């Protein structure tokens, strides 16, 4: 009896937590279909007209394109650097290995505003090169936390992989590159894809670091923020928010499926 009561109250509690997390998100998705341009509950009627008007908004389109470019490029950078770092850390024992692990993971714990300010000051004022704010600076900013995501996923997979696999490959006549190509890469591939999807999702809805690195350009989240602040085009904002939620949830859900057995799903 006790266990049954405990199970019921636990279910209710879990449900409450899920509602707490998801109710606002569901609500804003519902507002995206509201026929009135004033947000009030219940919605006045069902319409999809805001979808076409948001789609034809040139600013929103530019922001979307920039967001996709930035997230795509940041993910590519993260795949290359994150995988290489994971391979090095798990394959070799070298001086300063623990320190490097720490330095790799730390940026994800740093407040975005700190990363943002640091990057902003570095781009504008460093002895090597002056970076004009734009796509490049956004990509660099996003890469700082995207690398960790890929690194974490790949390193966890490598840790669970038998070390004898690479030895077996070398033993059978494969050199280092062949071993990486035929054994290591396929073994980590799902973890790699999962990491990349998470990185993409994180980059796609990032606001804080972007604020400090984008200059005059708008990514989609910045465009949303700007319109909210000015109280403009609120119905279109709802539609865009709906779209951002979908663009974030789908990759994260796929990533979770791909790494089901490793259970590595870290968000900031």
């Amino acid at each position: 009896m006790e266990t049954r009561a405990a199970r019921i109250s636990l279910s209710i509690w879990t449900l409450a937590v899920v509602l707490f997390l998801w109710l606002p998100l569901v609500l804003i998705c519902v507002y995206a279909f509201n026929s009135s341009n004033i947000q009030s509950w219940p919605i006045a009627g069902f319409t999809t007209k805001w979808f076409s008007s948001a789609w034809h908004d040139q600013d929103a389109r530019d922001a979307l394109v920039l967001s996709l470019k930035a997230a795509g490029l940041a993910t590519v950078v993260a795949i290359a650097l994150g995988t290489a770092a994971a391979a090095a850390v798990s394959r070799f024992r070298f001086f300063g290995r623990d320190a490097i692990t720490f330095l790799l993971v730390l940026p994800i714990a740093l407040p975005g505003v700190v990363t943002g300010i640091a990057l902003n000051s570095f781009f504008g004022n460093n002895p090597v090169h002056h970076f004009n704010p734009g796509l490049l600076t956004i990509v660099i900013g996003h890469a700082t936390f995207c690398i960790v995501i890929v690194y974490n996923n790949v390193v966890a997979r490598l840790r669970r992989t038998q070390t004898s696999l690479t030895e077996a490959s070398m033993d059978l006549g494969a050199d280092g590159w062949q071993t990486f190509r035929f054994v290591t890469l396929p073994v980590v591939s799902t973890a790699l894809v999962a990491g990349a999807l998470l990185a993409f999702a994180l980059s796609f809805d990032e606001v804080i670091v972007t604020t400090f690195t984008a200059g005059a350009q708008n990514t989609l989240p910045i465009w949303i923020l700007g319109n909210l602040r000015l109280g403009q085009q609120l119905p279109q904002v709802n539609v865009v928010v709906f779209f951002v939620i979908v663009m974030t949830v789908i990759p994260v859900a796929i990533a979770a499926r791909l790494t089901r057995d490793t259970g590595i799903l870290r968000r900031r």
Partner: protein
Amino acid sequence: MTTQTLPEAQAASATISPAVDVRLLGVRKAYGDVVAVDGVDLEIEAGEFFTLLGPSGSGKTTTLRLIAGFERPDSGRIELSGVDVTGRAPYERDVNTVFQDYALFPHMTVADNVAYGLRVKGVPRAERRRRVEQILQVARLPNVADRKPIQLSGGQRQRIALARALVNAPKVLLLDEPLGALDLKLRQEMQIELKRIQREVSEVGITFVYVTHDQEEALTMSDRLAVFNEGRIEQLGTPAEVYEHPATEFVAGFVGISNVLERDGRRFTVRPEKVQMHFGANDGGEPGRIRDVVYVGMFTRYVVELDSGGELTVVRQNLETSSADALESRGRRVRLEWRPEHTFDMERPGGHE
């Protein structure tokens, strides 16, 4: 049959091959302060089934890994077929390894696993297919080619690991406790299988170097064996030599049961099955008392405390004895007798025992 199986290797062995396939000269390997292999000299002849036997941490696996090239020795020299390979990478040595955990590639089918060595060496696809099929026949696993390793039983994985190594027709096959993960019955089956496979490929001259901590396995399978202890070889010889004439106390204890006595300043060993046990008080031999009885089904082990000092283990077949009879004899007075030609003098315990 065999000549069809591995034609490339046979062609290779048609050239004059030196009698010694693997040679280790003063090989030493330490990890920090721990000396894993402490100056090992070893010569393994072509076509031999050679076993490195020893407890865990005795350096046998490290020795195998040094031959494979996964480890570099701190000093010393490793030769394969008379060629110095000390500085060569694993993929530059004509040896293949069967790993303790099999190390099958989880993302590849059985056929792709077995073909891997041929593929990275650029053997054409058709040729690869043919050789994979042949070796799967030898391993008696022709019907699993399209499965993934995870869909196979432990015994099947073991055979695949073996096939994956043998398909390359290496000069030397290294086996790192390959049967360790199998249950007893399967292990005994595979022991016989391994010997069969070695016989089948022996005409093409594959040397088997086998690592195990199981003395029975070592005695059954090897042509010769080396007993390892604390990074050194304690004794090297045929199974019969090592079992019947253990050179040191360690070997006597590790290979079989340690039966060491000291009489008149002479330390010697006598094997438990060579000792006769009499229950009558008037028989010959040394008097003693049965301290412990272990019933093992086919036979019973008696531990006898001798009046003049020391302990001997005696093994008796349970010809007409039941477990109850055997266990009842605990505490009884007996006399033990053995023939002088069945005793062997021990070296004085060395610095490392």
